[in-house]
């Protein structure tokens, strides 16, 4: 394996390291916030015992009946036990954006024009998806 590691590019190593660190942080956050949620340490928006009323609903019905505005509105509800979990959950897809940003300076230094463009485009796409701009009605 050591011989193989020598063939791995600098950006690939940097990408892997950040992916690993952020992945571990996300999993720890998921477990900690879920424990807080289950133990009732922080009061949830929807009481746990009432969840079966909602988890079988279609998305539009769920949003209407729980008065949840979706998008990034969970940030305003971070004080509720269930929405506290969204910190760990949203970190999972955010890791990819961070990894792309991490390798950009390396690609710029190497003057790898095509991959600088590809990386920049991917960041734009992921940020647009994360922003909530790319959604239409159900």
């Amino acid at each position, binding site marked *: *394996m050591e011989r*193989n*590691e020598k063939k*791995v*590019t600098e*950006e*690939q*190593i940097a*990408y*892997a*390291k950040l*992916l690993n660190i952020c*992945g571990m942080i996300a*999993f720890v956050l*998921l*477990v900690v*916030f*879920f424990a807080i*949620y289950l133990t009732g340490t922080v009061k949830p928006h929807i009481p*746990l*015992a009432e*969840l*079966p*009323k*909602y*988890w*079988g*609903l*279609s*998305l539009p019905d*769920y949003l209407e009946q729980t008065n949840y505005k*979706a*998008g*990034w509105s969970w940030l305003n509800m971070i004080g509720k036990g*269930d929405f506290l*979990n*969204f910190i760990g*959950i949203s970190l*999972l*897809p955010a*890791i*990819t*954006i961070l990894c792309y940003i991490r390798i950009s300076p390396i690609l710029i230094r190497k003057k790898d024009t*095509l*991959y600088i463009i*590809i*990386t920049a*485009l*991917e960041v734009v*796409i*992921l940020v647009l*998806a*994360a*922003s*909530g701009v*790319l*959604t*239409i*009605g*159900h």
Partner: protein
Amino acid sequence: MPGKKLKKFLYRISKKPCLFVILVIAGFALIIASNSFGGSESEHLVPSAESLSRQSGLPWWTWPVILFAVTFVLGILAVLAGVGGAVLFVPIVSSFFPFHLDFVRGTGLLVALSLAIAAGPSLLRKGLADLRLALPIALVTSCGAIVGAIVGLSLPTNIVQTALGAAILGIVLVMILAKKSEFPEVKKSDALSTALKISGIYYEASLGEQISWKVHRTGAALLVFAGVGFAGGMFGLGAGWANVPVLNLMMGIPLKMAVSTSISLISITSASAAWIYLNKGAVLPIMVVPSVIGIMLGSRIGVKILARSRPAVIRYIVIAMLALAGARALLKGLGI
């Protein structure tokens, strides 16, 4: 100590496929039986999952616990059969659990993403996955996945459920029919892959030698990947089932590198689509966290028993499970 006992138990099971099949079938029978309390609902094309949950008479906490147990088993099977977790998770959970398909797909993407994040770093560091190969493909699959997620969340549930059933049965066919080539022959790199400088060398431990690889049909493969991304986003699947054949058979990438690069790809593609589901509100922590933890723990056990298991037998079990879940999803979508 309990961990050791569990490992021993799982090892014994993996050596006795009949026992394994019985356990899997018993698990499914339990879920179906618990789902069936109170009879069926003929007035809806897709039976109300809410009423399934209420009619089962089970307290709320049993569902996350069952979900955790099932995803734990799926994590083991996914590793042993060489498939992604979400391709098993979405059809099985949407068919046998009281959760709505919208939330199941959102969770499925996060399950696929978690597995890819956990496995990706090691594969990238060892050079078994190639980032230079993954980045252009990820750009195309991300676009497809975002469009797929938007379309999937805009369509009526019965249509998505029917299409999911058909897609899963299609995946079963791909798994049965698709051949694999350990070291495909690529006579000449195509112009696009040459411009992108996609080629490399990796160390093949089983042969003890360096294997050089290059790719062809890059343009055509990118078109196929757009479709793969679309399906992944629409149904909440990780799409490893399609990535590997396209990378291996179409582009000519050695099998081990195709599997590893596919995992890196999933971490990018699933992230794109997961944002859409998150922003639309199709994510429930009570489903996501037990599923992610269950499948992660299961996959770790799976990796440990992989060397001593019989992959062919387990692959057939997984194909049978997918066929069952796909058929049920199709019938459910058609209201039969």
